Structure formats: structure tokens, C-alpha cells
């Protein structure tokens, strides 16, 4: 049934925006749940509806599930348990198992979004998208362009339509082919509804028509909607709205039809009055394939989680507290930091490492010297009230003539290609055989200049209503909160490291996705440095002492940054480390370096073209080479295979080898009786890790519609987006080179806390409740006293006993390789 109420433009636009992809410009790339629009529904129900309505593929293929089953990645016992949980009678269970294992489902995935445009084709013999899209996309790109075209859009007025109007009125050449559309644009009297009346006719179909129209190019519509709400995602700001895009697209459609038929054609739904149009959001019929997929997915997920949980049970039984640690470091919760921490702890058994979101609890905008804009340095949903400025920058930006606009000019180009052209061949030759860091490289260490100073103390200055720098009280609050949340309140060692992270790559349009998600897709260097400064400041220490947090005078905090692609580390303000601690710092530095090399070796197991059997130095060298080679589309694997988020003390995972699959947030339940700290941890980790996890999930299961496809043919549009080839829609999601070996499972949160406390924390927060209750992230609690596992499902906690009672031991490298390459479950170490 079609909804017959009157067309409400505002409501329709809001509805539409809700469903469009919400990906910002390339430079602001941050992971988020691709199907955020469906998050208010239970996970499997939402996935099924999204599939029926929008034609998305929402699970891996049944063949792929079966392949995993036969390889042993899905355990038969778990599969039985999953089936048991859904059905009661024996015959039903057998019946479904048969379906899961045998039955062929060759049903095509269709969407409901091709009804009107099929009618155009069928009844009017006109392929509207084919006629309308090229010019529409070209004008949008020209208007929004950030610097690829050297001839800027010549009529920049107040907004998109005004600018087009100016171009139409003053340019001798018309945008259109026929007269009517021009007239309507220039008169500027008609509303969207009036245009829809011309094109569609029947008001009942207006909303659905617009859905179909906009979902013919979700990438462009989504981007326009993002720019409408966050204009700052473009440095060179442009005013544009989805409504303007729709308005202009309707005009182009009218024009295309006028051009073909004159002005006398009948609106689509008047001409086809009797046509049956299925309601886009109408009842979604059930099909047993939905249950089949759901059961397989659960079996896949719990086959892995079950062994992890049983490992955690085994591990936490033998609780070991690191007494008198020799080394302390705070790292980001990122899965890529976990493996590094593991190597550090293996090298120095008394080392103590902590995980906390990589902005270290300090939210601000960073402004490099001479930078014309502010750079967000905290999770993307925060709008900080502080700015931190860089002063005395030493490094200059390097240039590369190949990007210069004059190479594209007819007159200069001749001269340049005769000279620079031969230089290009040399450069290519060098990069192929001897790559090096060049102006093309996005190098994590260049984000913040090590030699430059930072203006961290507030001196009364303000800019755009924001304070430049922090007051001591504000500093103390932030330092205290972070230290308490990770449980580091005593036993401080002389040097405590704060390690941010970032990535390096070249020829990579997704460079922002390589950096720290908790720092809005930028390297976390400045945050680490700022935290160290604050925690070292005498006034701050004094305030902390008053609050009962006693940091010894002898303790010094040192900021650092880990390059996750190159496995290198850089320390900040080393000259401020007291002399007598310098020797200790050097000793620690050696541990870092050795651990980084081992980490590089571990990562090399996932790189097919590196021989991991070579010497450590050689392997490390090859890993580093990946980040600067023009021809390497996979400098690193980013968050591939992420599947867990563990919030608790080290004893939970101390005895486990979890590859690079968990995010780790240190948390001491004993310091958080009412769950306040847990709430602040969860409100950062659930959206960040859940967003990463689901973006990986959906890009993996539907590379075509939800992912960005292979990045090899990608073409940069206006510096803000990508498409394949020169025309066509913008691509959203992740490219196949980031997700191809990812195992698409939902993320499981494992929290060491009393189930009641967790329940309380979650049900109080509406947004967290949506994530957890609808099972977009999965949740288990480890009871700190009884050490029992409670699984959250169907809105409540219930006890979970792992099927798997013992775990394979990490006996040799082969066992480790099986975990990495065959995705076998966790291993026990020693």
C-alpha cells in the first residue's frame, strides 16, 4: 500500500537523509556503521529488511559459510547449539540443519528501487539516469571541487542553485536543451513539489520517487547531505543542500523529457495510472533464507567467541598481578597496538601496558603553525572548546612539480613534457626499484613536527570562542580521569610512556583511515605529547595530590608515537627527561625497537610477498618499504579481522594469544563501583569500535554497493571523493584491498564487571542501549568474583558456558600461523 497522505517536503528530506550514506570528505575519513539507518532494529531483522528494500547483500554467501564449516572454522557443536536455541522439536532441528548444510538458494537479491525508472524505460523509452547523470555529476563536482580543476566554478553565489542560476543567466550558453527547465530555474518560483507534479504527477508517489531518484546515486546524494550539515568537511566551503540537488535533478529530468517529446508529455504516474508500485518501506516478507543466514552467521561468530571466552576463563583463573613493574606505557585501544603491547610484555615480563582511547582523554583542535584551518584531535562526535597551537615549526612542506597545474596547460605542458617528462621516467624507475620517502608520502611523523613547540598553557587568549590552551584544573581533571579509568593510580615507574599512533602510506586515498580513529582519523602524536606535558606539570600534580592521586616526584611522562605501517617509534620532548633517567629511557627505547621489529615480523605473516623466514632486520626493512612504494595497495592491513573489545584488567587476556583481533581498554572494576567510568569508556568504545567493525563487515559482504570496490581503478574527484572511471557515482565504504581477508563477524565486548552494573550503565544511555539491545555489537560480562561468563542476548544477561573446554597451546610458529591465516581461534601461551 502506498501512503496516501500529502507530500511533506521537509519530512521526506529528513527521511531520505537518514538512509543516505554519511561519509565525509576523504581527508575526514572516519569509520561508522554503514547501515546506521537501520540501527533502531534488531540486527538480523535490519539486515534482512535492508536487503529486501535496498538490494544490499548483507551476509557472506551460503557457500562461503559451508566452506568454513567444512574447514572447521565453524564448529559443528556450536552450530547445533545455535540451532537448539532457535527451535524446540527434534524434527525441526534436523530439518533446519539439512537446510543449512544442503539446500541451494539461488534467489536473486533485488531491490525495490527500480520501479519508476523501469517505467520510464518501458513506457517512454527513455533511460533518464543515462541522460541526466553525466551533466549533474559534472556540475556538482565542479561546484564542490577543492583544487583539481584550476579553473574554478565561475559563478560562486550564495548556494548551489543561485550559482547555477547565475551561470544560466549570464553565460550565453544554457545548461539545458529545451526552454521550460531554463524558465523554471530563472523564475525561481516553483517548489520541489511543483516539479514533482510535472514529472510524477500523483502526489502519493512523490516520496518514493525521490528515494529512487537519489538512490540511483547514493554516493553523491550522501556527500551533498554531509556537506549540507558539516560544511567544514571542505576547506574551501560551499553551501549546498540535498533539496537543491533534488530540485536541479528534477529540472534536468524535465529537460530530458522535453527535449525528447516537447512539453506535452504526461507525468509518469498519470500516464501509468494503473501501474502497481510496491511500497518501498512496506511489509518485508519473510523468506527462510533469512533464518538460514542468521543461523550461519551466529554459528560463525560463536565458533570464534566460544574459544576466546573459554580462554579468558582459563586465563583469569590464574591471576597474576605485576608487582613492581619496570616499565609502564599507555597505548591506544587500537587492535594494531595490542600486538605491539604483547611483544613488549613478552620482552620485558615486568612491563605493564595499558589501553585507553588514543586521544588520551584530551579533546582539542590542533593548529600547526601557518595552518589555515583547525584539525580535530579527538573522537569525531565531540566539538572541543580548546585549541592547541604549534609554534616554531622547523619543517617545511616539500613540493613535487608533477602536481603543478601548469603541467596541464597546452603552452607550458609542451615545454614541461619535453623536460620534466624525462625526469618522471627516472623517478618511476627509482620508485620501482629503490623507493624512498618523498613529498607524495603521507608520513605519520610529519603530522606534527617533533622540533616544534606547543602552546598548551592557557594564557587568556581566545579564538572563535575557544580557549587557546588549558588551565591547570582542566588539565588535572583530564589526567585524573584517564589514569583512574585504566586503574593506574599507584606503583608508578620512573618513566611512563604515552604512545599515540598513526600510519604512513603513499598513493593511498584512504590515508585518513590508517590513523587513529579516536583522534578523528589523524595521528595521535599531539595528544600523547600534550598529555605528557600536563601530567608532568607541577600545578597539575599538586591538584592531583589533593584529589588523592599521588604521582611520585621522580616519575616522568614521555609522549611518543608509533607508526603502525612502518613499525617505528618517535619520542617527544626527550630533552626534558631528567638526566638520571636518560639511561633508563635508552634501555626502554631498545625494548621498544626490538618489540617493533617482532611486531613487523608478526604482521609480515599476512603479507604474501614477504618472506617471513628472513632475518628480523630484513623483514622489518621490507615492511617499511611497503609504506613508500607507489605500487603497494596494501601498506598495512589496518583493522582487518577485528572481532573483540576487551574491557578489563590484563589478567583477562594475559595468557592468550589473540592475534590482532581485539581492541583492549584497561579497566579496573574495583575503582568504579557505580559504573561511571565504565559509562565513559563505553560511550567512546562502542561507537568507535562498533563503527569500525560494522564498516568492515558491510564492506566485506557487499563490495559493490556498501564497499568501494577494488581501489585499482579509483579516480579522485575534487579532492573529496572517489569514483571508478571518470563518470559515475561516488564510492563509499572500504575498498577491497582493506577488507579482503577480513572475517566478517560482529564485535564482541567482553567486560570485567558485575552484570547488573553493566546492565544499569547501558540501559541508562539511549544510544548505547540501541547498539547493545539490538545486538549490533555483542556483549558478555565476566563476573569479577565468580569468574562466570554472562552473555547479553534478548535484552538480558544469562550465563554462558563455553562448549570448548580447552585451548590449543601456542607451541610453535605453525600454531601461530594457523591463527593468522586459517583464522583458528585463540591460543594459550605458556
Amino acid at each position: 500500500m502506498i501512503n496516501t497522505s500529502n507530500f511533506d517536503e521537509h519530512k521526506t528530506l529528513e527521511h531520505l537523509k537518514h538512509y543516505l550514506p554519511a561519509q565525509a570528505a576523504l581527508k575526514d575519513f572516519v569509520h561508522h556503521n554503514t547501515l546506521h539507518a537501520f540501527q533502531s532494529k534488531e540486527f538480523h531483522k535490519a539486515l534482512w529488511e535492508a536487503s529486501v528494500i535496498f538490494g544490499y547483500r548483507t551476509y557472506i554467501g551460503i557457500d562461503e559459510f559451508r566452506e568454513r564449516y567444512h574447514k572447521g572454522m565453524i564448529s559443528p557443536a556450536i552450530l547445533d547449539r545455535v540451532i537448539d536455541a532457535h527451535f524446540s522439536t527434534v524434527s525441526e532441528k534436523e530439518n533446519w540443519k539439512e537446510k543449512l548444510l544442503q539446500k541451494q538458494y539461488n534467489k536473486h537479491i533485488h531491490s525495490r528501487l527500480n520501479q519508476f525508472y523501469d517505467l520510464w524505460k518501458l513506457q517512454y523509452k527513455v533511460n533518464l539516469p543515462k541522460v541526466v547523470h553525466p551533466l549533474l555529476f559534472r556540475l556538482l563536482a565542479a561546484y564542490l571541487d577543492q583544487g583539481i580543476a584550476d579553473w574554478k566554478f565561475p559563478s560562486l553565489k550564495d548556494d548551489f542553485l543561485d550559482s547555477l542560476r547565475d551561470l544560466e543567466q549570464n553565460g550565453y550558453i544554457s545548461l539545458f536543451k529545451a526552454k521550460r527547465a531554463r524558465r523554471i530555474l530563472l523564475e525561481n518560483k516553483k517548489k520541489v513539489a511543483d516539479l514533482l507534479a510535472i514529472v510524477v504527477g500523483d502526489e502519493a508517489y512523490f516520496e518514493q520517487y525521490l528515494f529512487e531518484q537519489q538512490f540511483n546515486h547514493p554516493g553523491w546524494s550522501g556527500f551533498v547531505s554531509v556537506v549540507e550539515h558539516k560544511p567544514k568537511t571542505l576547506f574551501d566551503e560551499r553551501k549546498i543542500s540535498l533539496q537543491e540537488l533534488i530540485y536541479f535533478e528534477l529540472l534536468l529530468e524535465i529537460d530530458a523529457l522535453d527535449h525528447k517529446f516537447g512539453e506535452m508529455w504526461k507525468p509518469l504516474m498519470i500516464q501509468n495510472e494503473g501501474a502497481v508500485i510496491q511500497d518501498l518501506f512496506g511489509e518485508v516478507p519473510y523468506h527462510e533464507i533469512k533464518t538460514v543466514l542468521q543461523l550461519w552467521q551466529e554459528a560463525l561468530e560463536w565458533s570464534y567467541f566460544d574459544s576466546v571466552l573459554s580462554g579468558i576463563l582459563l586465563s583469569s583463573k590464574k591471576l597474576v598481578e605485576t608487582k613492581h613493574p619496570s616499565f609502564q606505557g599507555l597505548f591506544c585501544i587500537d587492535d594494531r597496538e595490542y600486538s605491539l603491547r604483547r611483544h613488549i610484555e613478552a620482552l620485558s615480563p615486568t612491563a605493564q601496558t595499558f589501553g585507553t582511547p588514543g586521544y588520551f582523554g584530551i579533546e582539542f583542535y590542533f593548529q600547526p603553525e601557518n595552518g589555515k584551518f583547525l584539525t580535530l584531535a579527538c573522537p569525531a562526535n565531540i566539538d572541543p572548546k580548546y585549541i592547541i597551537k604549534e609554534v616554531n615549526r622547523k619543517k617545511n612542506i616539500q613540493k613535487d612539480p608533477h602536481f603543478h597545474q601548469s603541467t596541464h596547460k597546452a603552452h607550458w605542458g609542451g615545454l614541461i613534457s619535453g623536460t620534466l617528462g624525462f625526469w618522471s621516467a627516472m623517478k618511476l624507475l627509482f620508485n620501482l626499484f629503490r623507493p624512498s620517502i618523498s613529498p607524495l608520502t603521507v608520513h605519520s611523523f610529519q603530522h606534527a613536527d617533533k622540533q616544534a613547540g606547543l602552546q598548551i598553557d592557557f594564557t587568556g587568549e581566545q579564538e572563535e570562542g575557544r580557549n587557546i590552551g588549558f588551565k591547570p584544573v582542566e588539565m588535572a581533571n583530564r589526567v585524573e580521569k584517564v589514569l583512574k579509568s585504566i586503574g593506574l593510580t599507584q606503583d608508578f615507574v620512573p618513566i611512563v610512556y604515552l604512545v599515540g599512533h598513526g600510519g604512513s602510506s603513499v598513493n593511498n586515498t584512504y590515508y585518513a583511515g590508517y590513523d587513529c580513529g579516536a583522534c578523528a582519523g589523524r595521528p595521535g602524536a599531539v595528544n600523547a605529547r600534550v598529555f605528557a606535558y600536563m601530567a608532568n606539570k607541577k600545578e597539575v600534580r599538586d591538584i592531583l595530590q589533593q584529589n588523592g592521586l599521588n604521582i611520585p616526584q621522580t616519575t616522568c611522562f614521555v609522549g611518543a608515537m608509533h607508526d603502525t605501517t612502518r613499525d617505528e617509534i618517535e619520542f617527544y620532548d626527550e630533552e626534558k627527561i631528567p638526566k638520571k633517567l636518560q639511561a633508563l629511557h635508552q634501555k626502554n627505547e631498545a625494548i621498544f625497537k626490538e618489540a617493533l621489529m617482532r611486531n613487523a615480523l608478526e604482521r609480515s605473516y599476512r603479507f604474501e610477498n614477504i618472506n617471513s623466514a628472513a632475518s628480523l632486520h630484513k623483514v622489518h626493512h621490507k615492511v617499511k618499504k611497503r609504506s613508500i612504494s607507489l605500487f603497494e595497495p596494501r601498506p598495512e592491513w589496518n583493522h582487518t579481522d577485528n572481532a573483540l573489545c576487551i574491557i578489563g584488567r590484563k589478567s583477562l587476556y594475559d595468557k592468550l594469544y589473540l592475534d590482532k583481533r581485539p581492541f583492549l581498554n584497561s579497566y579496573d572494576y574495583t575503582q568504579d563501583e557505580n559504573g561511571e567510568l565504565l559509562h565513559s569508556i563505553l560511550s567512546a568504545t562502542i561507537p568507535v569500535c562498533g563503527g569500525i567493525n560494522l564498516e568492515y563487515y558491510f564492506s566485506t559482504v557487499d563490495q559493490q554497493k556498501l564497499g568501494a570496490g577494488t581501489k585499482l581503478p579509483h579516480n579522485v574527484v575534487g579532492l573529496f571523493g572517489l569514483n571508478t572511471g571518470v563518470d559515475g557515482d561516488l564510492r563509499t565504504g572500504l575498498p577491497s584491498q582493506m577488507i579482503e581477508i577480513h572475517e566478517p563477524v560482529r564485535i564482541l565486548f567482553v567486560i570485567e564487571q558485575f552484570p547488573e552494573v553493566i546492565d544499569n550503565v547501558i540501559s541508562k544511555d539511549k544510544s548505547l542501549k540501541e547498539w547493545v539491545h539490538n545486538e549490533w555489537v555483542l556483549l558478555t560480562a565476566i563476573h569479577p568474583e565468580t569468574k562466570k561468563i554472562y552473555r547479553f542476548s534478548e535484552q538480558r544477561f544469562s550465563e554462558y558456558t563455553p562448549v570448548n573446554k580447552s585451548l590449543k597451546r601456542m607451541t610453535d610458529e605453525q600454531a601461530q600461523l594457523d591463527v593468522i591465516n586459517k583464522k583458528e581461534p585463540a591460543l594459550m601461551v605458556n
Partner: protein
Amino acid sequence: MEKYIIVLLIIPIIGFLISLILPKTNEKWLARTAFLTTGINLLCAFFFSGYWLFNKRIAVNYREVTLYQDEGFNFFIDLYFDGTTAVFLLVGALLSFLVVRFSSIYLHRESGYKRYFNNILFFYLGYIVVVLAGNFETLFIGWEILGLSSFLLIAFYRLRYLPVKNAIKVFSIYRLGDIGMLLAMWMSHHLWHENITFKALHNYDLVHEQLSSHSEVGIFISIMLLLAAAAKSAQFPFTTWLPRAMEGPTPSSAIFYGALSVHMGAFLLLRTHPFWEQQTSIVILIILVGFITALLGHYMSSVQTTIKGKIAYSSSSQIGLIFIEIALGLEWLALIHFAGNAFLRSYQLLISPSVVSYLIKEQFFTFQKGKETRQLSRYEHLKKAFYLLSLKEWYLENLVFRFVFKPLKRIRSLIAFITIRTVFWILIPLYVLGMYMAYFDENSYTLFKYYLAVATLLIAFLFVAKSYNERSSARLAWTLSVFAHFFIDLSITFNDHLNLKEAGIYLSGILVSGIIGFACLQIIHQREGKSIGLNRFHGLITKYPNLGIVFLLSVLGVAGFPITSSFLGEDLVLTHIQEDQWILAILFASTFIVNGIAVIRIYARLFLGHTNNTFQLKKDLTI
């Protein structure tokens, strides 16, 4: 020494063949094969160029093999080496070598890894053939290989709609240029009474003598050559295909459309330079084409908002300048310009993803807010008009479409009556009757044989037009395309008695390919249980991968691609059209060319351009 030039050709052939038989999963050896092929060839190229350089720099010609000999017709493979060859050879071999090395890692894990290297090596072979060619026939073989490998590489992501659509578009423009090649070959047969070698063209007196007595023939050949060159090098009015060709993996775009393939038009002009340089009108025309392209390319490049589109237009604008240089006789300048442009554009394409981080960083530190638009002067009005025109690509896209492909579509209603039934009940008997007349009743039509020939060829053309326009039945389109050849043959027989041996050479390849192709369609028809229409793309390649390859081969056969005897046949047939029979020649060339487009369209619509998605199948990540 000359006789060893063939080595340069044999290496890519061997490399290509090896790459065909290597298993799909053997990335290492596929890459190695391509690496060694281009690497060894590069060394040989250095060697030969060095030899040439230090050996008096005399152009050498080597007649390789004679494929067919008859009185008055001699088809032979001929190789030629001079300065132009040396430069194109070195630049091509070096760039291919670098790009192969680049791709061997860049394409790691791509599902079309093997296909990619097959195509690159095939392309490379075509390039070497063109560069070394010593006569038009040899050059045309390479020319066709370039066209086909371009199609396959643009449509590399073959299950998506846009790459396939654009691949057909580019292929069509290429074929349009091939009309020029075919007609130039036809006319030069008559001009020289032999298959002239490029070496002979350098004989000033010979050329001068011929041209002074046949000046309009000279102009005709030159214009046809220019048509071929302009289409291949994205010159006015064909410029707009170049950015649309950027659909494949970046390194393939870099080598094809940034560097090598796109300069082939300039190469053709350099090769035939001694022929047309004596005709002032042609020189002026080439300068004009070059100038317009340079100018329009400059403006279109300025307004492009995608990095690859921008590089494409800058490249074609530079090639416009190269055309001018060639026309002015500045051969060495043109060669240096070519090499520089090829290196620069391919490097710019290869580093094109870096443009985001680079320019964003630059913008971050140097941004200044744009100034308010000034008062509206006439200059401002004009600027806006220019901007919009450049954004709309100066309507060039429309121009070619309107004058070439739209009329072809218009014919549709004219020939709506043709169905598979009419073919069998009317056209076959008609053909048999014609054959009877042609071979047993020659005297009955001698008086009006030319008109009969034209009328028969017109029927062939209508077939092809129908096939090109067909929407509902793939089998009908295919049948028509095959039958067209028989009517062509009949028409030429009417015109200038084609003997059975010649007809055999021409039609045997067509017949075999035609039957195999029809069998493929029949198999699909049965397995799918319904008639397969051509009104949309079906993407059946995933379901029938082997059938797809077989069908593609039969498409090549029917299109007269240089793998079957029909390629030789088409050249042979051309010699039976007299030099004053323009209409027949143009009609023949058009039929042949449109037929090529029509059959590749059938292939594309059936096998490519669409992803069939079900929850059962394994997902393909690299599409």
C-alpha cells in the same frame, strides 16, 4: 643484421603465448613472464637502436613472410626500422617494462590477474607490430590488436556497467578510425598497384610523380589516414573518448591512454609523412586539427574535476601540438615531445591517488578565500560561457554521436521487418539466386552489374545496421552479422568476378566462426530456458566462463580480426573494388566496421556489464 629484427616481434609473441597457458593462480610466473618479455625486449630494443645509431642511421626494410600471392595482389609482412621506430620502440619498451613491474605487485590478489597480463602482453605485441611495420597491411594487424586489447582492458572490470559501456564506446570510435585505414589501404593499392612499403614512400620522386598525376587520390588517402590518426590519438572531433577510457586498473590506463596507445595516431602521421607532406592542403588540415585539439583540450583539462580526466585532456592537447610539429616537418621535435609526454602522463597517472593528500596538505597551509566575482562585464559573460562549454566538452560527445551513431539507430524502423523467419525464407533464397546469377549466368547482368553490386552491398549494410540495433534476439543479431559477409561476397562477385579461391579465403573463416558463435548462443538459450535479449547487459561470463571465451573468439572471426583468414580476405576483397567506385568502397568499409561493432556489442551485452547477486554464491571482491 636486418633479418634479426624479427626477434623484437618474436619475443612478445612467445611471452603472450606463455601467459595464455599459465594457470590463473600462478601470479608469480605470470608476472615473471611479462617482466622477462618486456625486459628482454627492452634490451633488444637498446641493441638495435644502438646498432642503427652507429651504423649510418639508414632506414632498413625487411620483407618477412608472404602470406598470400596472386597476380596483382601480394600480402606480405614487412618490417621497417628507422629513427621514428627507434624512439617509439625504446619509449614503448621502457614504459611497458616499468608498468609491468608496477602492476605485478599492484594487481596482487585481483581476480583478473591473469587476464590483465594477457591483455598487457597482447597490447604490447600489437604496439611492437605497429612500430615495426613496414607496410600498411602489417601496420593494420597491429592496429587491430591495439583496438581489441583496449576494449578488453577498459572493460577489465567486466561485471560493472560503466566500464563495459565505455569500452564499447571507445571501441566504436576506434572502428570509425579503421574505416580510414581500410579506405586508405584500398586507394593506395590502386595508386601504387602494389602493397607499398613505407620505405618506398620515402622515395621522393616516386611519390611526387604519382601524386602529380593523381592529386585527388592523394588527398583522399591523406584524409583517410588523418581520420585514422585522429580517432586513435583522441584528436578533434574524437577527443572525448580519452577520459572515458580510464576505467581499468590505473597502471593500464597509464600505459594505454596516458602514454602509448594514444600516441599511435602521431606515429601513423610520422610514418606516412613523406606521402602527405607534399600536399599543402593536408598539411594545413593537420595543423588545424592539432590546433583545435590543443586549444579545446587545454580548456577541457582546466575544468576537469577528476584527476584522471584532467590528465587525459592535457595529454590529448599535447598530442595536438605534436600533430602540428609533425605537420611542420619538425620530426625530431615531435619525437622528443612524444617521449616526454608519454613519460610525464603515465607517471602522473600512476601517482594520481597521491593527489589527495598532497593538494589537501598544500591547501591546508596556503589556502586563501576566493575573491568575490567582479562586475559583470562582457568578458565575464564570455568566461562563463567558455567555462560551461568546456564542462560540456564543447558538445563533441554529441557531435560524433549525432552524425554517426544516431543515423544508424534511425535505420531501425526501416528494417523492422527483418526477423529470423524472413532471414530463412526470403534472404537465403535471395542469396542462392544471386550466387546462381553470379557464377552461372554472368551475362544477364553485365550491363547493370555495378548497381547490382551496390544494391547487394546495401542489403549487407542493412543487415549489419539491424544487427547493431537489435534489442530482442541475440541469435537474430548474430545471424545477420554472419549473413552480411555472404552478401558482401556476393556483391563483390557481381562487381568484379571474385574467384572461388578468394571467396573461400574470405568466407571460410566467417562460416566457421559464425557456426561456432551460433552454437554458443544456442547452448545459452537452452540452459537459460529463454531467449536472451540485447536490451540490457546480462553478465553471463561468471556462469559460462569458457563459453564466453569461445564466443569472443568467434566474434573476432566474424569481425575479420587478424586471427582468421577473413582478415586476409577483407584486404583481398578490397582490391576488387575499382578506384572510381567510391560508393562501393565506402559502403564496404562501413559495413565491415559497423559489423565489428555489432558483434562486439552482442558479446558485451550477453557476457559483461552486470553482476548477478544471490546469497548462495561466494562474493567477488575485486569488481
